[in-house]
């Protein structure tokens, strides 16, 4: 792998370098790599964009275009607790809007924002496929089905009381 090292990788994290070298230097791998970077860092940091740009030979502007096109990629770090309320149709019909409104007013942030202390971030997701349990919301990887406003309050109360 050593001889394959590209100049763009110099000075960036070892993890990032390893991530890049898992893929061939083929432009069609851009989204695969971004998915992995997003997963690892929780967002796509500028240093990663730069490294990818040099590795795949794609201009930064184009990479930025791709990142902002796809909902999964974010340019800002998420909070320690990432609250995502599903706004898929099944959840919407079962009243997930009320849960989202409550989350907004309680956390004092809008969709896509992170609280100043970095503790919470909020997202409205489109269908996670658990429609049979609608409405659902998630906090990090935990899925809460057949959710109510009260349930959200209880879970946030619990997180608040832990710290």
């Amino acid at each position, binding site marked *: 792998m050593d001889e394959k090292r590209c100049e763009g990788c110099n000075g960036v994290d070892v993890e990032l370098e390893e991530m890049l070298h898992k893929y061939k230097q083929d432009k069609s791998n851009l989204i695969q790599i971004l998915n992995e970077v997003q997963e690892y860092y929780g967002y796509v940091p500028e240093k990663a964009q730069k490294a990818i740009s040099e590795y795949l030979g794609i201009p930064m502007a184009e990479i930025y275009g791709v990142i902002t096109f*796809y*909902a999964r990629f974010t340019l800002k770090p998420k909070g320690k607790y990432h609250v995502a309320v599903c706004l898929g149709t099944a959840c919407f019909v079962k009243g997930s809007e009320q849960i989202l409104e409550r989350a907004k007013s309680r956390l004092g942030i809008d969709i896509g924002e992170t609280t100043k202390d970095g503790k919470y971030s909020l997202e409205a997701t489109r269908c996670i*496929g658990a429609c049979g349990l*609608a409405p659902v919301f998630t906090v990090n990887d935990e899925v809460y089905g057949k959710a109510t406003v009260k349930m959200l309050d209880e879970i946030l109360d619990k997180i608040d009381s832990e710290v």
Partner: protein
Amino acid sequence: MKSLEEIKKIREEKRAELDLRVNTASNSREKHILVCHGTGCTSSKSPKIIENLRRIIEEKNVENVRVVQTGCFGLCAKGPIVIIRPEDVFYSLVKPEDAEEIIEKHIIGGEIVERLLCKDVDNSVVKKLDDLSFYKKQKRIALKNCGVIDPENIDEYIAFDGYKALEKVLFEMSPDDVIKTITDSGLRGRGGAGFPTGKKWEFTKIAEGDQKYVVCNADEGDPGAFMDRSILEGDPHCVVEAMMIAGYTIGANKGYIYVRAEYPIAVHRFQIAIDQAREYGILGENIWGSGFSFDLEIRLGAGAFVCGEETALLESIEGRRGQPRLKPPFPANAGLFQKPTLINNVETYANITKIILNGADWYASIGTEGSKGTKVFALGGNVVNTGLVEVPMGTTLREIVFDIGGGIPNGRKFKAAQTGGPSGGCITEENIDTPIDYESLKAIGSMMGSGGLIVMDDSKCMVNLAKFYLGFTVDESCGKCTPCRVGTKRLLEILERITEGKGEEGDIEKLEKLSRNIKNASVCGLGQTAPNPVESTIKFFRHEYEEHIKEGKCRAGECKALMNLWIDPEKCKGCGLCKRNCPANCITGEVKQPHVIDTSKCIKCGTCITKCPFHAISNK
């Protein structure tokens, strides 16, 4: 690496071993505890149930019992679901702590755990899965193996005729034979548009190119649809096999499956399926000495609805923004990397192996004149039995919602059902007996779509629903065509005004005109169908739009600005449910006395309306 003979041997031996999964009369001494490991049940802790069951079996040294993780059984509303075979006992709403009782009482004691049995809609207790009204009208073809086999075990797939269709195709059929069979079967694309599958295969076969590709569209973006996810989670090998058959037919040696990254379990299982198929030599070079080679790769989506459109999907696989291309040229001639490409949806592929094995006539005997076979629907919203259902084409919406779905919960009335998601339209009471197939749905202003079927009761405001869908398309419009990018935004703004009580005379006509323009002037299916929810709700619920605009009233009570909640003292029994559930603590009242809402503190969340068992709370 396994030879064809070895595969056949696995099939024979495994099939005998697994007979108890499908044969209730099996005299096997073994029992299999099947636990649903689909996304729905996993969210309600089914992995923990599996873990507990296995631990207890080991601790108690119980013999002749096996715990199997399976794909989705369909009845998500009652999940997590556990089924014991061969006796076919169906346990619902199982909790991890129930594991001990299941082992002790059922497996060791041979007695049914009555309290975990499922209650049917008529409140009768049901022991067996097939006795549930939910399953009676269903016919499982695409979902045949879901809930029967362990999706992470290739041998179990092989046991139930797995890779037998591939064998038949490679050694007994020419590509033209395959195309004829698929064409004669009448199979049409299950992704929504309903293009005849045989034709698509034929076009790609005759297209000239040194390299061709087979692509599977698993970018199930329609919110509320999860059939493709369930197939990938419950029976991934059937998609691998069908893509290989497609490859052989059109002359492609490489396939890509484009899956949403939001479906981690599906991605994981599909990767396992690919790895196992490679290990067995089913994917690879010169498969079984037939001269045919094929390999498969997963490409992850990243959350863009428009990527479900086939050309946008190809752009995305190539690593770019998912913006649709102009057609023609069609993907059959210039698709992925500008090479001839066959793109089908997951559910379409899931039908292929069964058609090859059972013949075109068998498949064509199911369904209606123009729409053959079955369709899987994700039944959601205000219906008792939410979940996944597969029914023959031609089944009516009434049968799906009331017979299979168990009707509307909480004593409410059916108002409408939406098919086709953000591209579709609503079906109202007057059309509820329309047989569901591609043409009939189109005729009543909706569409088949990928299979999301959302039921709405009379507490839903149709203007608000249109607003919801437009909010979705505004977010998801890729921005290439101005009429879609800007037009949907303007539609949304008008709808927002109406739901805020600021509607003006002439708004409905404006919506109608703009809708027509967007449809006529957009390149891809997303733009061409984006106004459908608006047009359809205006068509069937014009009076609701007019009420919002002229009377400042939302009869469903969903539009907050037009909301003024009150409790009817005549109907209120003073049970206190509303008070306990009110997040703003603005309801007061003594037990058994009519309660009152302090409207100055009310946040108009509507929780009390949904909680009141006496329908005493409404919008004044």
